[in-house]
């Protein structure tokens, strides 16, 4: 391949297709000519043909474009930020949240609150967790900052409900324990990058 295309520094012209637009006629004769040419050109019929063709395509060639939501749903990106989910550890089924409060801190609309306590096993227990969805702007910072990949954004975008409160407590967000096998890892912001292992420096261990 030559270097010609790089030598053309007339940026803005090289890869564009310019349309041959008619100039607005100024003389009476010019206007007359334009009318005549437009009248006898089949442009209008091209329009009719296109719509008719699309109808045939839709009806008989299976090219109907409609997705019949809610009976059919389009797949959404794994990075989609819908209503939050709290994940569980796959091995033990215990919730992942450690109650560190980083999500609460980073939340720019100040809508996350949590109650924690010292539990019987000398661990920090999240006794309640809530997101005020009246304020949440679904920015995803909470999922990004979460060190345990505990709070993530789920794919559940159908959030019509009689009460906002139906989504906002720990129980509502937590993966039901009987559906643990269906729990999906989150791929969005804050998820472990595919090459995470390469970036870790190992610490010596005595045993």
């Amino acid at each position: 391949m030559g270097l010609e295309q790089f030598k053309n520094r007339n940026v803005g012209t090289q890869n564009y297709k310019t349309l041959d637009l008619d100039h607005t006629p100024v003389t009476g004769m010019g206007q007359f000519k334009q009318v005549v040419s437009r009248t006898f050109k089949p442009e209008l019929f091209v329009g009719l043909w296109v719509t008719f063709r699309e109808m045939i395509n839709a009806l008989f060639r299976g090219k109907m474009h409609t997705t019949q939501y809610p009976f059919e749903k389009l797949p959404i990106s794994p990075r989609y930020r819908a209503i939050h989910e709290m994940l569980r550890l796959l091995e033990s089924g215990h919730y992942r949240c450690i109650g560190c409060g980083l999500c609460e801190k980073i939340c720019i609309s100040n809508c996350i609150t949590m109650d924690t306590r010292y539990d019987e096993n000398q661990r920090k227990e999240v006794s309640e967790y809530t997101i005020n969805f009246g304020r949440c702007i679904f920015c995803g910072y909470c999922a990004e900052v979460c060190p345990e990949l505990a709070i993530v954004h789920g794919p559940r975008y159908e959030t019509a409900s009689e009460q906002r409160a139906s989504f906002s407590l720990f129980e509502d967000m937590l993966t039901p324990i009987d559906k643990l096998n269906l729990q999906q890892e989150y791929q969005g912001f804050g998820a472990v990058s595919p090459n995470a292992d390469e970036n870790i420096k190992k610490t010596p261990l005595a045993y």
Partner: protein
Amino acid sequence: MDATHLPEVTAAGVIIKAVLILAVVSAIAGFGTYIERKILAFMQRRYGPQHVGPYGLLQLIADGIKLFTKEDIIPQHANKIIFAVAPVITAATAFIALAAVPVFPDFTIPFIDVYVPSIASDINIGILFVLGMMAAGLYGPLLAGMAQANKWGIIGSARTAIQFLSYEVVTGLSILAPIMMVGSLSFVDFNDYQADGTWLVVYQPVAFILFLIAGFAETNRTPFDLLEHEAEVISGYVTEYSGMRWGLFFIGEYANMITIGVIASVVFLGGYNDFWIIPGWLMIIGKIAFSFFFMLWVRAAWPHVRPDQLMWLCWKVLMPLAVINVVITGIVIMLAQ
């Protein structure tokens, strides 16, 4: 059709036919909304209504229920009487126009042997009556727009006035040439003129096209639906209407579409004459259906024009063409004699 049939026109017959026309046409007008939505959807590769009843057929009933039960709002500052009467004018003129239009061939009801001319009233100035009635329909949108105390409505009625009045001229002039050829103002005579199988459109293609274009304007259809062009004037003269009053405008528009379809079929496309082995009644249904479909098709394909373009088209293109067409037709008739 000769004068011997005239005694058959009885008062009872006329009333029955009037009721039939009213019932059938308003039903078809309603059904037309369903068809319109379906056709437009298909042309955009959508499904259209499909959840109410099989293939969404009962959507029509759902809409009817909706229109009947919707709150009827009359704006505080509207002229209430005119506001209330305006939609009735539109619907009424549309239906009255159909009284002088023959839709089917005359027939005899079996067993009771009653001969029925399939026209409510075969008045000898049928065409003038129909055109006149449709012109009177202008009052509907005009009054509606002016009565509702809404600036969009005012703009809508202003557009009504210019658009309807202007295109009346084109309609009249374009249909004048066929009238000169047939020599009668009765639709039945037009039909009979074409009984030999040669449609008038063959002699008068320009008149046909002009009539069609004017028909779009008269019925307020895309690309000339400037009276209620949403993108410019909200909903024009129907801005403040809701419920069944709005429904009457709607029915009137569809009835007018059917009327235009019937006139085009009878005047230019051979009427209800048998064609080859196809019976006349089927032929005319087919023709009306196609003209209806064509209106929808055009709506799917073509964009709106601007009001100034509309006027330009009317007065600078269509009207001169129509006049020229009349003159040429006259000369040809004169030479042929």
